[in-house]
């Protein structure tokens, strides 16, 4: 038994490849927990960042600086009455949010947080990811149709049309990145998520800079398509608040609604991870070749710890700036505790064995976080596209551009 447990720790593959079910299960649990925490954090961050972009404070009441607001919201959603419209189709209505959530989470099986930090490494990883994430449109259509109401129906129609059309542009951009992986001596490309990052490692370049500007263009196409794919502003037509009240989930409430919410945010994280894996070097730290050598390795490996210590310092500054009134005592203690936890994590990240195993995950998460920030920024800046304009952008701009980039990438790849 002990051998079974330690056998994976010694291997340098993913638990799925090592055939170690126990560790695969542990990874699944960790990813599930981590993702839930990430969605909660994302909820808070989005509200705070958006608020500060809009000259307001955002949540401030529940916990210090509203830190506990997402938890309070989650509790509220859980204890809310679960309403099912009288004329809804009960089974489809029930299963739709489940499909959306399950597809959003399943994608993470192949997301490589590090060379060994993935549940498994499929040789068709990219295909699996695109395939599963596009299944979520089924759940959306089912939700819209089963609600038996006009607004959800229009929302579902919009979303299915939108997701299907942007999938194509997305796929073309992905193919051009996959083409780049075959630029080695053997000429063999790979669809494996880990393989793609390793190809970038071997070619000493992130694919976003490869064949400039071809890689960048493919990345931009993907970045636009992924916003449309996840129904976020400025492509949030399926849930356009001012037009369709809430789009396909108008009739949902309470826990079911929160499933849609969870799915939306995990889908955002999922597509961001695809973008990071395919173009931004996955788990690789910045400048792995330009700034290489022992000293640089050490310095970059300290950054995760320093980041957490910095966050802890920010929390402690918040503690000092808290009003001294007794009313704020609990909040002050809470914030200090939060800072202490962050600081402890930071210190833990300085321990060499932890440092070495964790820094891949840190860099991957940092890149995904950057992509998530862009999502929030878009939402604060752009008005919403109209349906026909959205389709025009998808079919008349992104699709030809994607084909062009693909052909040019192939030609350049042959010549070089």
């Amino acid at each position, binding site marked *: 038994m002990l051998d079974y447990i330690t056998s994976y720790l010694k291997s340098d593959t993913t638990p799925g490849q090592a055939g170690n079910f126990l560790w695969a299960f542990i990874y699944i649990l960790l990813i599930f927990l981590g993702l839930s925490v990430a969605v909660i954090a994302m909820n808070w961050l989005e509200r705070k960042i*958006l608020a500060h*972009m*809009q*000259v*307001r404070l955002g949540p401030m009441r529940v916990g210090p600086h509203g830190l506990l607001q997402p938890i309070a919201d989650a509790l509220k959603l859980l204890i809310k009455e679960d309403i099912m419209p009288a*004329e809804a189709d009960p089974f489809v209505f029930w299963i739709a949010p489940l499909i959306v959530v399950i597809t959003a989470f399943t994608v993470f099986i192949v997301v490589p947080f590090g060379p060994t930090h993935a549940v498994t490494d499929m040789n068709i990883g990219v295909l699996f990811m695109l395939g599963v994430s596009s299944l979520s449109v089924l759940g959306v259509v089912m939700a819209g149709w089963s609600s038996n109401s*006009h*607004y959800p129906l*229009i929302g579902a*129609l*919009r979303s299915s049309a939108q997701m299907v059309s942007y999938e194509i542009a997305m796929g073309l951009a992905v193919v051009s990145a996959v083409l780049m992986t075959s630029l080695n001596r053997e000429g063999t490309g790979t669809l494996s998520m880990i393989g793609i990052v390793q190809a970038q490692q071997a070619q000493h370049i992130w694919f976003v800079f490869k064949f400039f500007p071809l890689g960048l263009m493919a990345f931009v196409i993907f970045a636009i398509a992924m916003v449309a794919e996840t129904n976020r*502003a*400025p492509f*949030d*037509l399926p849930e*356009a*608040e*001012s*037009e369709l*009240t809430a789009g396909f989930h108008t009739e949902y409430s309470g826990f079911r609604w929160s499933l849609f919410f969870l799915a939306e945010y995990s889908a955002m994280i999922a597509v961001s991870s695809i973008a990071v894996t395919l173009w931004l070097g996955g788990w690789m730290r910045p400048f792995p070749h330009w700034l290489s050598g022992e000293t640089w390795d050490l310095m970059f490996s300290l950054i995760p710890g320093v980041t957490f210590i910095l966050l802890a310092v920010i929390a402690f500054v918040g503690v000092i700036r808290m009003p001294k009134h007794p009313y704020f005592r609990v909040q002050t203690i809470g914030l200090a505790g939060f800072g202490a936890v962050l600081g402890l994590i930071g210190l833990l990240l300085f321990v060499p064995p932890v440092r070495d195993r964790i820094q891949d995950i840190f860099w991957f998460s940092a890149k995904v976080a950057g992509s998530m920030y862009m999502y929030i920024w878009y*939402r*604060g*800046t*752009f*008005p*919403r*596209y*109209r*349906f*026909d*304009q959205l389709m025009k952008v998808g079919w008349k701009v992104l699709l030809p551009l994607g084909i062009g980039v693909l052909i040019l990438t192939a030609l350049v790849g042959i010549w070089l």
Partner: protein
Amino acid sequence: MTDATKSLARLSSSNLELGAPDKTFLDTNELIINMGPQHPATHGVLRVILKLDGEKVLGTECVIGYLHRGVEKIAEHRTYAMFNPYVDRMDYVAAVSNGLGYCEAVEKLLNVEAPPRAKYIRVILTELNRLASHMLWLGTHALDIGAITPLFYTFRDREEILKIFEKYCGARLTTHAFRIGGCQYETYEGFERDVTKFVDFVKPKIDEYEELLTTNRIWVKRTKGVGVISDKDCIALGVTGPVLRASGVKWDLRKAQPYAAYSDFDFEIPTGQNGDTYDRYLVRMQEMRQSLRIIEQAVGKIPEGPIMAKVPKVLKPPVGEIYHSIEAPKGELGYFIVSDGSTQPYRVRVRPPSFVNLQALDMMVRGQLVADVIAVIGTLDIVLGEVDR
């Protein structure tokens, strides 16, 4: 089908004379959608019944009256002075303009004129209110189109205007700022400084809004060529205000038949050419700048003197009738008052700009998409308190 949907369908099919949907090989049905009265984008309690072919709008029908309070009837049972606060409740985002129109109408009926100082204060407050109204319009209009950020910027700056109102008369929204014959309150200490400070504060802010929207490609795409209405149609429907001016008609009552002290000031009437939503946006943005210009001129030369004309305690206008209209932020706001010589008006009829402008909705959205209906409702700048009265 429930009873409610059945009656809705019956209502729509009987009242809407609409063309058939585009003939396709699939025999598609039209979809009748009920938008409002509780809907985030109808600016109050407007109910629009939409007949859709997919996303295309085949026709609309407005159902109004959810906010009907019988303001005009109430007037018949109140004295002239008592009715004054009621008019603030019609267009509640431009309450000062409403008060100005009513007070001037009654003054005309009484044959008195407000003293020059009162007129200047009236102009300053009315123009501030025009700014506040346009800011609220911009924020909500942008929000409807999906840009959420301008709303918070405009509300931040509108707050400064409301603070000035609050300091002047104690109320922020329904100000009841003017009295028949002038103003009840003298300007407070530092009023001119506050207004000047506000003008300097808000000028760069308007540039900030424009920076967010004017050249934003999505904004331009969403508004250009949407909800086009020609100048002829505007005039035929009686549409006034920025909507009319965006169609290229240079008609502003502040210039055409100057009231209050508007003839003393130098300002321009911004006009558009295309009569689409983008032009209406530009016209209103320009109007905000022109309002600032008027305020700047007025605040520098408020004349000294009394603020109330000599009006009797009990107002008994001579028998007769009067129609007086002013340029409210949303268009021509007219008051038709019939006096029978008693202390109460015999009849008050209000010509609200929102109500008349709302008529153009159907013409503007036919053949466009659902999202455009929202944009057009926003660009018409309606306030349901004024539509229903």
